[in-house]
């Protein structure tokens, strides 16, 4: 009678995972993830870089990102394991150093993004209550998100959808204001073709500068690879939801930038820390402006929180994976007994982000760039590097592990995307070499962790144990 049936040959409901995420939920996950980040946070900076025509920068940034999205979609349908860029690069190149570099880059990008978003949050927070200093708000923000992640209440896909709807609602408010303004006949459409070419720069350069920043607004889509495994019918629904979500986000971005450019002067947008709020504060809609201001600030804060949460979830997850591969100290794979959260990783990530914010608040006064601009550029640099490599990996992995169900990205488009990624990368480095110092600093965190594990990792093991082998203590069942 004794019979242990294993997964494969058991009856209907065993076998694989019972998948829980529908294509539509994935679409909103993508949309919410992408929308929250950029536009609320740095529309003002993009406007300052390009001028009234900054919607073009968003359009170009979105296009390059969406093309990169097709490479992700192809790779995800080939390798649905939730591992993302590091796995693809490892499959394509089989080079451990490169894989480590990609993983650490992704981790660093996520740190910088969380910092930039926290700063964006504090800008909107200040419009509601200007009392506490920005640094305190950002630090508390990160602390609260870390606690939320520790408890683990972000697991609900429903909450994700609600957040996405709120984010979209905020952007729709901006669009309605734009339409209302045009309907009143006040709009000057010439603004939309104005370029900030004051110091002899050509429009193309102005756009390129804006694209680098606007690219930050598209980041976040790569996190959807995390949930690919749980998606129902991933071969069909994943490419559609991912690219569909990005295209919709792109259209919303372009329309919102147009609305902002028409209703508020570029100088005012450029000078504002919470630029989209300026649009609401013009009082164009026949609704009480203070009420709208409060409402919009709250929406913006929810949107930013949503995206930051995803970033904060990603960091300990990467550290956990690395600890299991013995490239960072083993304590990062420690799981809290009750909450099942990687608490060491969470805590460490929070400390790194906090350090970024503290250093960033003290240093840029010398350098002349704002904290948020710096951190978003650093994020973008890391991500451009990753995206370019993902596209190369996608091309390199052609012909391997394919089935008729595999989604196939358009090759010429991928090449355009690769050139686009590299062009933006090159320009950003050329324009702002200081960012490289920050990138190096973040990479150093990863390298230090590796060295700590390499030099001291084996001491905690009894003699005769291989790196990675379980000790009785780590395995032991009482």
């Amino acid at each position, binding site marked *: 009678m004794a019979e242990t049936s294993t997964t494969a040959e058991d009856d209907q409901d065993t076998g*694989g995972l019972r998948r829980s995420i529908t294509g539509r939920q994935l679409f909103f996950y993508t949309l919410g993830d992408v929308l929250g980040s950029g536009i609320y946070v740095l529309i003002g900076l993009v406007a300052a870089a390009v001028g009234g025509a900054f919607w073009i920068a968003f359009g170009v940034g979105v296009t390059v990102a969406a093309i990169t999205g097709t490479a992700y979609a192809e790779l995800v349908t080939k390798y649905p394991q*939730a*591992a993302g860029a590091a796995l693809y690069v490892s499959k394509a190149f089989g080079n451990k150093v490169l894989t480590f570099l990609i993983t650490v880059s992704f981790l660093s990008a996520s740190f910088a993004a969380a910092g930039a978003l926290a700063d964006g949050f504090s800008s909107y927070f200040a419009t509601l209550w200007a009392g506490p200093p920005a640094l305190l708000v950002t630090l508390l923000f990160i602390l609260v998100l870390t606690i939320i992640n520790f*408890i683990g209440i972000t697991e609900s896909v429903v909450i994700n959808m609600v957040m996405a709807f709120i984010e979209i609602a905020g952007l729709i408010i901006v669009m309605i204001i734009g339409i209302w303004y045009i309907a009143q006949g006040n709009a000057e459409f010439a603004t939309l073709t104005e370029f900030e070419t004051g110091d002899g720069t050509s429009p193309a350069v102005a756009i390129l500068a804006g694209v680098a920043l606007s690219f930050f607004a598209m980041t976040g889509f790569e996190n959807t690879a995390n949930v690919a*495994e749980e998606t129902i019918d991933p071969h069909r629904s994943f490419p559609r939801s991912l690219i569909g979500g990005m295209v919709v986000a792109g259209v919303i971005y372009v329309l919102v930038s147009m609305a902002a450019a028409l209703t508020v002067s570029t100088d005012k947008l450029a000078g504002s820390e919470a630029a989209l709020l300026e649009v609401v504060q013009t009082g164009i809609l026949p609704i009480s402006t203070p009420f709208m201001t409060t409402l919009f600030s709250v929406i913006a804060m929810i949107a930013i929180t949503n995206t930051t949460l995803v970033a904060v*979830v990603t960091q300990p997850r990467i550290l956990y994976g690395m600890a299991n*591969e013995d490239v960072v100290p083993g304590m990062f794979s420690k799981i809290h007994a*009750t909450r099942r959260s990687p608490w060491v990783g969470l805590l460490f990530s929070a400390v790194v982000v906090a350090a970024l914010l503290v250093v960033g608040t003290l240093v840029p006064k010398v350098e002349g760039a704002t904290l948020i601009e710096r951190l978003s550029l650093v994020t973008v640099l890391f991500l451009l590097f990753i995206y370019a490599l993902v596209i190369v990996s996608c091309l390199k992995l052609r012909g391997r592990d394919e089935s008729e169900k595999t989604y196939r990205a358009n090759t010429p488009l991928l090449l355009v995307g690769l050139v686009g990624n590299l062009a933006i990368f090159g320009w950003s480095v050329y324009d702002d070499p200081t960012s490289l110092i920050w990138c190096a600093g973040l990479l150093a965190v990863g390298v230090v962790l590796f060295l700590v594990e390499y030099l001291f990792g084996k001491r905690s093991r009894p003699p005769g144990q291989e790196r990675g082998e379980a000790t009785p203590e780590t395995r032991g069942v009482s």
Partner: protein
Amino acid sequence: MHVIVATDGSRQSLRAARHLKSFADPKKITDVSVIAVTRPLAAVAFADELSPKDRRKADLEAGGFKKAAESAAAVIAAEFEGWGPKVHQRLRSGSPANEIIKAAQQLGAGLVVVASGGRGLSDTVLVGSTAQRVQHYAPCPVLVVRPNPRPRRKKS
């Protein structure tokens, strides 16, 4: 009777499984379903602390958290091998408490075995623990296996 043994990959869940074995009558149990739930949106979707560490590493590389969950479920299932009842392994994804309760309903379970992880302050202060929710909403009796109490240190 169909018994569901839930695992979150913790050693405590293995103890829960052993506890069931220690007193239950295998003749009265027809099926044992080992259920592992991955949490796609959590920082670590599934932490396998049961398989040997090199196995875990290979799992994460080859199949991500799903593989980790499979391995953990396999360790628990192996506990019941040769005990009598049919053993099944089932993987689900979502909120652990919800998925365990849903599985109990779908399988018409007669008993759900869960482990209650912590014994510290966090367990009592923070709401929403899986074991607590399963106890409240499961359609059948629930066996919650608590950790051994920590030996009290005498203060002088």
